[in-house]
């Protein structure tokens, strides 16, 4: 029973300064760089250029 009462609240974790990993950010910026949208006769094509 002791454990039920003494368990740390998970809400406490959320209050910490949480940020995503650097590599996630880097991936997104690289993805954005590589993605280009091509317009063709009212159609849009996505192309990932590495």
């Amino acid at each position, binding site marked *: 029973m002791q454990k039920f009462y003494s368990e740390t609240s998970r809400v406490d*974790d959320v209050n910490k300064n949480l940020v*995503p990993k650097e590599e996630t950010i880097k991936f997104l910026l690289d993805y954005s760089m590589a993605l280009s*949208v091509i317009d063709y006769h009212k159609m*849009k094509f996505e192309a990932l250029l590495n």
Partner: protein
Amino acid sequence: MMQSTSSDAFLVNAYMSGNEAALSELVTRHKQRIYSFIYSKVFDRDVAEDIFQDTFIKVIKTLKRGAYNEEGKFLPWVMRIAHNLVIDHFRKNNRMPKFENNDDFNIFSVLSDNSLNIERQIIKGQVENDVRRLIDELPEDQKEVLIMRIYKDMSFKEISLQTGVSINTALGRMRYALINLRKVIDKHNIILTN
């Protein structure tokens, strides 16, 4: 790098016109709020990371396609995407419930993989070979009964019919076969475990 005082609307427009640095500024500006929001729902750093990434992939695609109408609500829009992806995550998990381990109980302490890995298969093969070699050393009458009983899975009645001895004799031979095997194993300190 953009000035951090630029408004979201200005950065969004700059990004839509091809300025990649504007996206970097937008992500840096809002990453903590968006990530904390996702984490507050899923309570798992890795899942939060995945959802954060998927959120911005949607944002990037929508902006690059020019499908976003700038009305000064960039952050609420991104939060809405994140919120929808969190819901998708829970829907997916409801179809495939996930067991969460904690310090008190770990599911892997009661679940085990009983199939033999390569090392165990080799050990099992070696043990079986050793046992066969030991059986070969037994006197012929005991060996015959033991092979019929253990390897051919015959009953003592069937053994007695086939060998032409009484059931009691067959039982006795089996008993001596096992006693003799144990003696040899003890004498030579043979370890037969898997």
